């Protein structure tokens, strides 16, 4: 198993707040790995550090053995990391299809001069962008909405749109920040299927999620974060029974709840 993403001694301070405090972990190719932990544990911050929204205070991030923590966000996308956002961030005044086509940007080449000349090659490429994006839209089931403005979609549809957009960048590693937030249980189940299908295409997934059902179902490995530090790591089952994790994150009631349904 070769690690696609390696994180070493990663640390991020915001003024007095240490959001990420010396985190080490690896993600293997074709794995689905979940990060869980209480609110404010630093999960989103780790994603933000990987996609270089902000620079780490210290530590290194390696992707396919190369250090990436000094690259610009768009270069990181080109290298093959894409993501979705906890607070959806679609391009509201662009159509659904155009949103996805923006995702295709980093896999295509035509620059401004080609655009000005409107070369045959450019038009052909534009057509390929269009077709590929449409394919991604049907993958998430939004092809009927392709001409709507993204702002007219519901929250959930916008989340799916983010998926399609992220997939259009042909990532090797996909970071999903709470994909199931705001989903009902059956919808979350669908989401789980969806995540599997993405893995089947050959994409590695790093997932942040509070919906334990989903986490337990899809992830190969789970790491648990609390106050910016890793407090547990292992298979879903190991983590689920870890005392510390129950104390800070899952809570007694949740296990009770599960037992309750069982009986």
């Amino acid at each position: 198993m070769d690690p696609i993403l390696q994180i070493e001694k990663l640390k991020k301070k915001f003024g007095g707040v240490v959001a990420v405090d010396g985190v080490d972990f690896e993600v293997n190719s074709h794995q689905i790995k979940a990060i869980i932990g209480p609110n404010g544990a630093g999960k989103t911050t780790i994603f933000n550090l990987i996609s270089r929204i902000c620079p780490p205070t210290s530590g290194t991030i390696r992707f396919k053995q190369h250090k990436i923590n000094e690259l610009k966000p768009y270069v990181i996308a080109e290298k093959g990391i894409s993501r979705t956002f906890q607070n959806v961030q679609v391009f509201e005044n662009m159509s659904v299809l155009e949103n996805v086509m923006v995702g295709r940007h980093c896999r295509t080449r035509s620059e401004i001069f080609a655009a000005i000349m409107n070369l045959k090659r450019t038009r052909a490429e534009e057509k390929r962008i269009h077709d590929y994006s449409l394919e991604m839209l049907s993958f998430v089931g939004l092809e009927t909405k392709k001409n709507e403005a993204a702002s007219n979609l519901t929250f959930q549809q916008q989340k799916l749109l983010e998926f399609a957009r992220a997939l259009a960048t042909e990532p090797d590693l996909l970071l999903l920040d709470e994909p199931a937030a705001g989903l009902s249980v059956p919808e979350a189940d669908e989401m789980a299927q969806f995540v599997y299908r993405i893995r089947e295409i050959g994409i590695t997934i790093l997932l942040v999620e509070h919906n334990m059902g989903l986490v337990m179902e899809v992830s190969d490995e789970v790491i648990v974060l609390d106050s910016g530090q890793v407090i547990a790591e292992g298979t879903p089952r190991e983590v689920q029974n870890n005392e510390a994790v129950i104390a800070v994150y899952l809570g007694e009631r949740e296990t009770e709840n599960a037992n309750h349904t069982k009986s």
Partner: protein
Amino acid sequence: MGRKNILSLLILAGVILALPLGLGNSYYLNVLVFVGIYSLITIGLSLLMGYTGQISLGHAAFFGLGAYTSGVLSTKFGVSPWLALLAGIFVTGGIAFLIAAPALKLKGHYLAMATLAFGYIVFIVFNQASSLTGGPSGFGQIPRFRLGNFLLRSDVHYYYLVWTLVIVVLLVSLNIIHSRVGRALRSIHEGELTANIMGVNTAKYKIQVFVLSAVYASLAGSLYAHFITFLNPTPFGFHFSIVLVAMVAVGGMASVWGAMIGAALLTILPEYLRAFQDYDILIYGSILLLIMMFLPQGLFAGILRLIKKER
């Protein structure tokens, strides 16, 4: 570029060809030459502001840089006006490139201020570098363009020259808008950071579009210089930068067609208002206010909506 745009361009070209027949009078043509010159700038501004979401309150400076480079080179150094025009484009584009990188890191009002400050500095240089620019008094006798042996001297000649360039610039701009690059520009408008994370080199495109819009303005400036044959700093100040932004906003930011309509309206309107003497500024102000209040998306969007309703 869609069929609609091609059709619109053809119609525009037809109208441009036909207009001088109806308007033999050189005063009207003269106004239309200015409409064309200003359209060149506003088309660029609409790419920059309407599509990419980057404000500039300093575009009069690029207009001026084009005009002065062209004017000074051709008048004082005997360079041919065409070469001077090209030189203007390189000088202006170069300067735009130099300030774009740091300036475009700024957002919103901060960017507005930075461009305003830049424009003002350039204006001061026009005033102060009098050995080159003639200072506040300006300089005249700028040569006119030649096509081979043919000297472009009348307003009709300039009318055709300017509007041919407007069509070329429109074509170029529409091609950009409807390309991968155009989409990237709009994504920057919608959410710069998100666009960057999704793989768009936002800094590069912002700089490109900034430089492009500066080049359009420079082109307009050169045409202006060789048309009016006299330059002093006043037309290139802060006030004109604001007028340019107003043109783009009045016409409708998010469309190059709107930008042209705005340029036309705010150039022709004051000519109509001449008859009102002092009251013209009150009327002008009121019309501007009313348009922005009742058609905040601009005239172009307003007209489109009307047409759709009719159907």
